[in-house]
């Protein structure tokens, strides 16, 4: 195998290069059933992280991906599935999307609806990866193999977004500390 290229930190100046005007909009504003996921990124001192980038990746509402590695293909043509938002001075980010469907596992189980979430920032030499699950999917979440692998309910709770106003969810990310979010070795 050829040697992989190592990761390096995104640094403090990512804001000149990475944000896209339509980055936070996985779906356009006004899309029926759209849900806005907002949250803040915090460091180990509990201070907001104002120079992070949050990216999300998810299936479409039918639980499918427009990608050669999903043999079923997509039902919703044109669904981007990808969101990207830099954090503001208060550590906040915002992603407008629709809830993904549940996903079949290769071993026969079912994954609950979720977004894969990457966080990049100065001070992170590699991205950190977490998942956002949905609070109105208690049964599906209870059967999700990834959440089951974590066990501790308090830790699992860091991966489930909280209901906010109608059509809005809150998903805070704690990089460190007592409320540290579960991060994955992907």
């Amino acid at each position, binding site marked *: 195998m050829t040697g992989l290229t190592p990761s390096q930190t995104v640094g403090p100046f990512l804001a000149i290069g990475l944000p896209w005007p339509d980055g936070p909009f996985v779906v356009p504003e006004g899309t029926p059933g759209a849900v806005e996921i907002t949250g803040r990124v915090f460091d180990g001192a509990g201070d907001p992280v104002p120079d992070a980038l949050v990216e999300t990746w998810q299936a479409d509402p039918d639980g499918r*991906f427009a990608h050669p590695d999903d043999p079923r293909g997509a039902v919703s043509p044109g669904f981007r599935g990808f969101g990207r938002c830099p954090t503001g001075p208060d550590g906040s980010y915002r992603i407008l999307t629709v809830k993904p469907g549940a996903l079949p596992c290769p071993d026969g189980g*079912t994954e609950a609806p979720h977004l894969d979430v990457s966080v990049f920032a100065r001070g992170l*030499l590699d991205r950190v990866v977490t998942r956002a699950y949905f609070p109105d999917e208690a049964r599906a979440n209870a059967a999700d193999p990834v959440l089951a692998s974590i066990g501790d309910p308090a830790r699992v709770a860091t991966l489930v977004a909280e209901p906010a106003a109608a059509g809005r969810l809150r998903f805070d990310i704690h990089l*460190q500390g007592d409320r540290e979010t579960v991060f994955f070795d992907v």
Partner: protein
Amino acid sequence: MMTVHPLPGLAVAPYERPSGVHPPLHFAEYRSTALRAPRRPLVLLPHRLTEVTGPLLGAERVTPAEADLTAQHDGEPQGQRIIVAGRVLDSGGRPVPETLVEIWQPNAAGRYRHSVDDHPAPLDPNFTGVGRCLTDSEGRYRFITIKPGSYPWRNHPNAWRPAHIHFSLLGRAFTQRLVTQMYFPGDPLFFQDPIFNSVPEAARDRMISRFDLGLTVPEWALGYTWDIVLRGRGATAFEQPDGHR
């Protein structure tokens, strides 16, 4: 709860799990890791559908002009004009086609066009320092830019970053996502840079581009070649031993 029926024939080939390549999240010499790197052990995430897929963005999101960082203003930027080009491959040597490559960098004086960069070096009205392109069907990318300057930072006394260009790659799958930095050969600042040295020693030179006279355009610009290698399929990475390298 929506019922999802098992899918006969759904086979998800996992990607390799690298070791000895990436820096640790905690690296005391890089002070910003202290309050930002997670403390708890990472939880193993098996590769299922969400991880083996990823955004495949179309060419409509990128214009060819975005690959030339010297032609984004009325005049040409100050500094040494260079061409930075190479291929994006996976570890099996297969090209990663039509994937987004995004770069950003300071100007020739080592100053970023960013409000929090207070390095007392001049801004260049003719240089933004941001470029994008899609790799072609063979995984090739090519940028025209100017050689970035080194700049001081406050990590430790008299700390200076080696000259570098930031690279961001989406790859073809969530697992392939990579943000890194490309360095230049022979930089005297490597020895004191904790970000460069956070990478295991054997893998550091993979971040250093190579001066390439073949890529150099006579009487116009110096060429630097840098290939970027993303994770490959663990199960199939040996099918094509040493395919392209």
